């Protein structure tokens, strides 16, 4: 089980690394081409944008795992121990329902838009919009994996708090 979890997290991580790794290469190549040859790739900007959308959703579960989604914990911290656990348990339930809902609505939306083509690459928008149901499905798995620890102690897995944590870049 632990091993499966490790493989899952690593695979998810590499997906995100490849996506963000590709983005500067694509945009950079386009800038270089324009300055060197005077031509540019019509699909470069579009591809980078849609990769960014995939990065956002596919990375959301990992961000949750590491506690990188900013939340306000004042009320939680003010409650007595058992109350804290109860509240965090309720939060997990709310999030599970919400994530499940997003998966189903996201699939519905992607299917409705499947006949629309992207301007430059001419691929169906289905492949862009699929990012959301995929991302929220991953979020469900990650949430279930961190839920026991989160409800018990209010902490996350792999949070690298000692070197500043992953909250540093978020939100401002």
């Amino acid at each position, binding site marked *: 089980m632990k091993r499966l979890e490790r493989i899952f997290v690593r695979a998810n991580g590499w997906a995100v690394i490849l996506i963000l790794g590709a983005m500067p290469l694509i945009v950079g190549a386009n800038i270089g081409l324009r300055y060197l040859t*005077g031509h*540019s790739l*019509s699909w470069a*900007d*579009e591809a980078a944008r849609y990769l960014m959308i995939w990065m956002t959703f596919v990375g959301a579960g990992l961000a949750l795992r590491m506690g990188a989604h900013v939340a306000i914990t004042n009320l939680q911290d003010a409650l007595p121990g058992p109350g804290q656990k109860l509240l965090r348990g309720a939060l997990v339930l709310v999030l599970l329902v919400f994530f499940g809902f997003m998966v189903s609505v996201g699939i519905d939306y992607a299917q409705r838009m499947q*006949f629309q*083509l*992207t*301007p430059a690459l*001419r691929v169906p928008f289905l492949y862009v919009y699929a990012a959301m149901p995929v991302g929220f499905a991953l979020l469900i798995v990650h949430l279930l994996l961190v839920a026991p620890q989160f409800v018990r102690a209010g902490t996350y897995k792999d949070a690298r708090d000692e070197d500043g944590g992953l909250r540093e870049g978020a939100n401002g």
Partner: protein
Amino acid sequence: QTEVKIGYALAPDSHYGVAAKAFEEAVTEQTGDAFTFQHFPSSGLGGEREVIEGLQLGTVEATIVSSGTLANFVPDTGVFDIPFLFRDLEHARAVLDGEIGEEILAKFADVGLHGLAWGEQGFRHITNNRNAIETPADVEGLKIRTMENPVHQAAFNAMGAAPTPMAWPEVISSLQQGVIDGQENPLSVIVSVKLDEVQEYLTLSGHVYSPAMLLVSKPFWDGLSDEQKEAFETAADEAVVAMRGFVDEVETTGVETLKERGMTVNELSAEQKAQFQNEISSAYEGYYETYGKDLVDSIVNFE
């Protein structure tokens, strides 16, 4: 009372705004107070693509959009984006109002939309800061912003320019700072966003005709009675009259306005245009492949 939310990308005093207003007035005149209109100009509901998606979902009832975006939904629409396809406004309007235009309009029913009528933005012209443009040699290496439209980009690549697809919010400051040399748009846009403040040369190249379309949401359309549908059809025709009238007006006064504001203006003669057309013949091979030689030829040869 049914609410009609109508969204468009330009300001209330643009050709889109004028058409939307005329549309509202004509509908109200025929149906009394059955419909109330709420306008969302200046991309208030998001970009054109997003508003069309809103129509498909039924969250927005009506929109006026340019052809570039429409090609995402009905690829055949892209045929009108081919450079040097139309001789003049008359030619373009006749094709769109005729059988070819009707056929493409009808295809929007397959994607959850109802196309009411073809409008227009007018012909697109080139502005830049490097030099006046008379021959294809003048655009050699010119860093020109184009829409994210493969048909346009193929043409500028074939001319030897360096087309740079760029999101509109970055365009003005990029022209100002010299990241790009020029851009291309209809006169209505050039005048209303005051491109003369950041551009020196205007070449009336008329390289591409830009149609627009008045669309309503299919779920909304299907819920209308027959009389209401007819009212909307006639109102759309009146909106198109208003839009074309606006474009005609800008085609004449816009050039004067831009000259007064200090731009250097030149117009391509028929011979000069033929030179450009020749220059992009390689791109035409691609267009034939995408849209069919028959369709392209039937538009070019339309009398």
